[in-house]
């Protein structure tokens, strides 16, 4: 009934053992089309479970426009909108092609993606690189400044990092970077500054050893030094690579992906393979930059909740006292209470990533959909908040909960599959 396992608990244990055993390495940065066959054509990847253009919220639509401009499929916004509205662009969820994408998650052929290899299973996962803050594609901005930066990332940043990584012996060991950064106050969704620094520390010597021009090297190091959230996208690809390997255990009730497309929140559980279980997303609550407010907030969006499925992000709120205020929690005690609450729906702790502020308990490991439904406690997600209009960008940050209905649907489907109902 549960394959080689006699109980669901046993199957779940096998899944979480895979998560603990994961050995993710950052091995390369390459144009997306070279690793995602489907991108050779007028195809865009997007965040979350499947969605069509007309159902997308502002930020994702804006990012689609930006991608059309970036790829040269359109001259201007109007042309791009025509293409998109006429259905000439095919959309595929990032998750369906071993990829993940932040916020809108819009990924096109020539955008560079980080390549994370999980050495335990040999599988790989991809994610675009972080563009920094302000006007950026992931929040739906598509002004010249945005497209220019994307082109620089394609022409300079990507190739430079690729060359640098090729000089490393085996790529960069990401578990090590995460283990270090979690003791430095990162939770890897809202706060990545420590991990980004650790990454900068690891990669800079190799960048300096490349034969690229001093001007390029200098620009790349400067960009990395300026981009506090650079590691987020690496953490996302890491979470994806590790959870995809865990997903090969096709039994049990462990949540293997959480993702949002601005309209629906989707989850996958180990026993149901590739199937998405969706419910309408909630809208994040949090703090807003000056001039913005809750009523301008876009509903929950992005593949970045893969980090929470992996056990970091909001699940590891206690690790990052520095951001607990920013994400709307009342203080350290609230952060502690949040992580403690999350342990109610998780199976164990991940010994790879121990959290000093949590008495060295490891990060949450294995969200059990059964525990979510039993208690009604839904996973908490730390997230940036996009303006609901395309092109405005990030207007704040906060937290949001996964909707309970996804988990109920997943369990019902699993019970049905097992012939129990």
């Amino acid at each position, binding site marked *: 009934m549960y394959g080689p396992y006699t109980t669901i608990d046993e199957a779940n244990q096998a899944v979480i053992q895979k998560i603990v055993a994961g050995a993710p390495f950052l091995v390369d940065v390459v144009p997306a089309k070279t690793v995602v066959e489907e991108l050779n054509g007028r195809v865009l990847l997007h965040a979350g479970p499947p969605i069509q253009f007309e159902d997308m919220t502002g930020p994702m639509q804006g990012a689609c426009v930006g991608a059309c401009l970036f790829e040269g499929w359109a001259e201007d916004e109007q042309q791009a909108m025509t293409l998109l509205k006429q259905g000439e662009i095919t959309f595929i969820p990032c998750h369906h092609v071993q990829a993940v994408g932040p916020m809108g998650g819009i990924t096109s052929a020539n955008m560079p993606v980080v390549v994370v290899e999980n050495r335990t299973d040999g599988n790989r996962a991809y994610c675009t690189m972080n563009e920094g803050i302000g006007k950026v594609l992931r929040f739906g901005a598509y002004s010249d400044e945005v497209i220019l930066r994307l082109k620089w990332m394609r022409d300079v940043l990507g190739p430079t990092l690729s060359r640098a990584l090729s000089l490393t012996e085996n790529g960069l060991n990401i578990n090590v970077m995460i283990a270090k950064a979690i003791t430095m106050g990162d939770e890897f969704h809202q706060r990545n500054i420590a991990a980004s620094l650790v990454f900068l520390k690891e990669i800079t010597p190799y960048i300096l050893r490349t034969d690229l021009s001093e001007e390029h090297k200098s620009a790349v190091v400067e960009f990395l030094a300026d981009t506090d959230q650079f590691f987020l996208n690496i953490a996302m690809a890491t979470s994806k690579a590790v959870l995809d390997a865990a997903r090969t255990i096709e039994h049990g009730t462990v949540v293997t992906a959480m993702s949002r497309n601005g309209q629906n929140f989707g989850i996958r559980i180990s026993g149901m393979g590739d199937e998405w279980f969706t419910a309408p997303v909630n809208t994040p609550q949090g703090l807003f930059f000056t001039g913005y407010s809750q009523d301008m907030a876009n509903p929950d969006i992005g593949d970045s909740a893969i980090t929470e499925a992996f056990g970091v992000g909001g699940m590891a709120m206690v690790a990052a006292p520095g951001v607990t205020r920013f994400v709307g929690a009342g203080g350290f005690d609230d952060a502690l209470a949040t992580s403690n609450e999350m342990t*109610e729906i998780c199976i164990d702790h991940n010994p790879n990533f*121990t959290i000093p502020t949590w008495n060295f308990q490891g990060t949450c490991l294995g969200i059990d959909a059964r525990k979510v439904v039993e208690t009604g406690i839904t996973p908490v997600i730390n997230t940036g908040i996009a303006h609901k209009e395309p092109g405005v960008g990030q207007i704040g940050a906060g937290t949001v909960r996964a909707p309970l209905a996804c988990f109920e649907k997943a369990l019902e489907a699993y019970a049905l599959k097992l012939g129990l109902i």
Partner: protein
Amino acid sequence: MLYSIIQENSYQDSVNLMLLTNKISMMDGVHQASIMMGTPANKEIFQNTGMYTDELDQAGPNDMCIVIRTDHAEKVTEVLATIEAELKNQAVSSSKQAFESVRTWDKAMKTLPNANLALISVPGQYAAEKAEKALDHGLHAFIFSDNVDIHDELRLKQKAAEKGLLVMGPDCGTGVFSGIPIAFANVITEGNIGVVGASGTGIQEVTSLIDRLGGGVSHAIGTGGRDLSDTIGAITMLNAIQGLEKHKDTEVIAVISKPPAKEVRNQVVQLLHRLSKPVVAIFVGEEPQTHEGSVYYASTLEETAMIAVDLSKGRAIQANYNKLNGEVPSAALRPEQTTIKGLYSGGTLAYEAAVLMSKGLELGQLIHEDGYLLKAGGHEVIDLGDDKYTQGKPHPMIDPETRVHYIKQAAQDESTAIILLDIVLGYGSHDDMAGALLPVIQNTRSEAAAKGRNLYFVAALCGTANDPQNYEEQKAKLEQAGVIVKESNNQAVRTALAMMGIQLQDNDKTHSEVKQTMQGEIQVSEAIAELLSSKPRVINIGLKKFTHTISSYGGSTVQYDWRPIAGGNEKMRRILSLLS
């Protein structure tokens, strides 16, 4: 010889590794140990300390290097297993983790890993399920909840018996374990008397009296009111008695029950005769005439406590404990004032009052009527804690409202001479029941006086000096309002009857030697012996206020905030149970 293991890509903080090194170094058979990441600097340290091996050549900065010096190659496996467990449990070993509350069994068991008792006060329909889980986790279950089906009770108790566990309840209102009051309970001095009772207020009355008589209680174990029924067969009581027999600090055992089914009674009595410790037993309502060997039979709860205390202090047992203490207050009654109205909050106290009054009124037998424990010739005894009166309302030990209503009604009845009450103190009960009842007592008395009638109140005050309500203060409040306060229910009923000119006479009890002592081994499971030999570690599922009492008396406890599974969604609840 040196053994080295390289764990590739297994980064750990150096502090963790130093702690780990200490731990491994202390293992038997390990002479020396060193665990570090394979950085060049660390490799130098390995070299300087003579712990370097060739295998370390290959190790990189992200590889955990474990080097141990031991004479036994097989130690290596043990060391690796220890390291794995240690790294996994870094958190568990580090001090206590104070959780406000938990929401799942898993979390509760992780928070209080040595828990041995589940205190369950969730709505009755969910209580059996929780108790079952408790048993599955190897915990004794104390089911405060009522409205649990008797077949569920039987199933749970059978399962518990197989596992060597105790199920106390359902509808178990009270318990005292190693001095810790559980649920509705009094603060009782610790001592050598172990109490087992199928009655909540029966236990409260006996333990409180033991305390006030200068004795002490080791444990008071409630079994739930149906334990001695034919269906259940005293499963819990028999196990609890055997537990107390084997418990070294218990020297006297007191057993409290309403009259059980005949077969069950025989079983219990047979066990009592096999015990090495003296026993006092009361089956409320029976009128025993003879003590048998070291098994003493009491007719009232007060007598039970008195015999227990005399036994516990090695004093001779008297022939008759059931005498009226003190002067009978004079009562100036009008001719039509001929009845006593007993308005009780405690079920067994009400039952005892009904028994004593039936005897005094020479009714020959208990006359039950729906909702009344006694209703004859205008006399009434009502258990206001009965389901019939508590529908949708808090229990009268918590909330005075129902009783206030019935006092008013009784006062308007011109035949009423005396209103008989019980005031039960202790944790769980109203903070100031005397104060809460004072207005209605004063008002009804003055209204009656205005009509030329004297209305008398007699109250049995159950509790101890250490109860949170303060026994003496409660007593003073009642007396100031003209209430005649007695120290036991037995004395209160006898006083009320005497005021009506009825003297209850009990015969002296005789003592017969038992010709042959029964044979049979006393069996106690490890888990029950453990429960009785240390302070309980309690997972409190439901009413949060129970945790405060437990922790303030030195028990450890975790609050399990119970909510209906899947938010009460029946379909999901069923799916969850299928997927468990």
